[in-house]
């Protein structure tokens, strides 16, 4: 059969409009003649090549207008000096040079990595611990779980204000009075360049851990109970059961959480912006705050776009990297 014949055959009834009555006899008819199976499939599912695209069109057009075109124009903007009224001026890689050579960008990139690693590791560890503690069916557990999930639901602006109060840098501050009980002097927390980073990280973990916990809980439900029992019979300790049964069972969950948390970590902005805005002494400056300052506060949209493109590339690299790593691990 030539390809032209195939097209003709497919051009007959389009998948969407075929009445069920006509479909009925089709499977039995051509049996025995030629290679019937692929043709049959084509007849039933085929139709014009663009039929599936037509069904996808509403979604694709929305994506086109709200995702792809803005992304493409951001990419173009990153090579331009943006002045909408006078007309944008092409400047080549100048915006990228401005971002990369800007004061403190490299430091900010380092801070972002530190913060991302710390928050990701902290939230996952705490999330897993919480999930292991709260696994089960009890009604009270449901209540406790909801209570633990609360930080995720609270708006970040409220979270920041809450932590600002807790981090009050004098002896009568909330956390400082607790530290005072165990004999540690008042800490400056977010107000001291030495402790500001850790403080922001702590806030991030507090907010991120319950989210991770929920996903872990869902993952834990999928771990075969029988394996636990088998391990128990074999004399495995509680820790060994977690190490050799739970963690391998959560592999997929761990990967997805890692990617999500790492992306969240790289894009970290709101907590930092609200708590310290990169200060004191630039000790908590992250990539997003630098981009915000260069691009939006100074109204240099081209520079801001260049920064955003760089961040996007970093995120893309990370995601692809994790995928490759995981695939290799699977082989």
């Amino acid at each position, binding site marked *: 059969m030539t390809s032209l014949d195939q097209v003709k055959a497919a051009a007959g009834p*389009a998948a*969407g*409009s075929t009445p069920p009555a006509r479909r009925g006899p089709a499977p039995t008819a051509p049996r025995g003649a030629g290679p019937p199976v692929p043709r049959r499939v084509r007849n039933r599912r085929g139709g014009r090549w*663009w*039929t599936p695209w*037509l069904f996808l*069109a*509403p979604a694709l*057009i929305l994506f*086109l*207008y709200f995702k792809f075109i803005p992304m493409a124009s951001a990419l173009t903007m990153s090579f331009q000096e*943006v*002045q*909408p*009224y*006078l007309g944008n001026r092409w400047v080549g890689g100048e915006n990228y040079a401005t971002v990369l050579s800007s*004061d403190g960008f490299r430091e900010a990139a380092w801070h972002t990595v530190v913060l991302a690693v710390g928050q990701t590791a902290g939230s996952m560890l705490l999330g897993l611990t919480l999930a292991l503690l709260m696994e089960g069916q009890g009604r009270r557990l449901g209540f406790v779980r909801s209570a633990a999930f609360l930080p995720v639901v609270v708006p970040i602006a409220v979270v920041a204000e809450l932590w*600002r109060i807790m*981090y*009050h*840098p*004098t002896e*009568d501050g909330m956390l400082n009075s607790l530290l005072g009980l165990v004999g540690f002097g008042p800490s400056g927390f*977010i*107000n*001291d*360049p030495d402790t500001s980073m850790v403080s922001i990280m702590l806030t991030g973990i507090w907010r991120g851990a319950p989210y991770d916990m929920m996903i872990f809980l869902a993952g834990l439900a999928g771990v075969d109970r029988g394996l636990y029992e088998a391990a128990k019979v074999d004399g495995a300790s509680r820790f060994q059961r977690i190490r050799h049964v739970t963690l391998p069972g959560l592999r997929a969950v761990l990967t997805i959480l890692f990617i999500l948390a790492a992306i969240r970590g790289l894009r970290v902005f709101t907590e930092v*912006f609200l*708590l*310290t*805005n*990169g*200060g*004191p*002494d*630039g000790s908590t400056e992250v990539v997003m705050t630098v981009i915000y*300052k260069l691009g*939006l*506060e*100074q*109204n240099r*949209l081209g520079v801001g776009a260049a920064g955003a493109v760089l961040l996007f590339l970093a995120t893309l690299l990370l995601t692809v990297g994790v995928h490759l790593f995981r695939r290799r691990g699977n082989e």
Partner: protein
Amino acid sequence: MQRTRWIGAGFLASALALTSCTSGPAGADAKQDSKAELELWTRTTPGGPGEKATLRLVEGFEKATGHKVKVTAIFDDFETKLQQRAAQRQLPDIVMNDVTQLGAMNSQGLLREIDLSKIKNSQDLVEQGLNSGKSVDGKQYGIPYSAQAGALLVRKDWREKLKLEAPRTWDELAALATAFTTRDPDGNGKQDTYGLAAPLSTKRGYASWYFSNFLWAAGGDFITEAGQGTYKPSMTSKESTEAMRWFRALGCDDKVVQPGAVTMDTPPTNETFEAGRTGMFVVGPYLMSRFDKSLGKDKYEVVPMPKGPKDATVLAEGGSVYLMAGSENRAGQDAFAGYAISAEGQRLGMEGVDGSTVQLPVNKTVDVTEVRPDPRWKTYADVYRSSGRYAPSIPNWTPVRQTTAETVNALMADCSLDLGEKLRELDTKLAGILQEQGIAG
């Protein structure tokens, strides 16, 4: 089949139509129509008292001149939204926004030059106000309609309890701040009060904004004019260094600045003053109505900033009327600017209990006490006229403010940093910024 094809064609057509929307005709030299409705954007909270006050002003303008105006209030992302309009080449006719936006809007080509001879009452403008509307090349691009300047708020009850005078020099200011910090002025038996409230976060350059009141009074400067519209950095000058050293001592040695200042912008700083944790605060007049309610009018007083090593210069700010490029009703634009600064417009702008468009009048013939009998307003008006100084209208002031804010923030947060070295670094950065803006001297 036929129908799906049409649907597909429809999608394609609408997609093309949407795309073509983004490139409209340019409106640089629009055809003039003195009857056209003017579109006015003001940077204030939509639905808030600021918008109502603007509507009152506009109503007066419509009655007086017969022009029609449509008011749009925008607060968040005002500049971004303006950029979007610029991209569509359909700017509003009039924008009422901060004076410091002049350089940025002008360098983007959004403003049209103003011919002062066409603006009624422009001869009555306060001189430094008029100058704040000029760009570095001396051309007029903005007409201020409202001004404000900082004055010192002092907890009167605390001061009287400790039997001290209101400060008139920097030494007295430091002494009073120390007394407020160490001598338990609220009498609760705890050391939980501080002399001076200061928002020293880097957010929107607050640290620099607040410090300018001290820097200029000491005779220092962020950048100084080097002739012919050029500037050079001057944070390492003797005066600037001295100002920074003195201000830093308040936080590092005397410890009279509220703890946590380096991560606070204005809202939490206002709270420290309201909650009785700080005793002095340099702010503009707009906060009085808030503090009258939350703290009580009898608890605090407003005095001019104490004299520094040079004088008592404070930061002047305010709002300007900008006439946007591409308007089809330039006569209407001119008329609005003229009305906003007229005696009638200024009085109308000052009215209103909660919100007003005019803080301090910029028209020399208008006395603030005509509308606001409260003598504290008089203090503010006097401070503005005698000691108010605006930030220079360089193409983009924001990076200068941001960078200086970062250094002030760093020096206040870490008392072990070397002051001279930090200021030298700052000067290098400032030189780079001036270079980039093409105004390095």
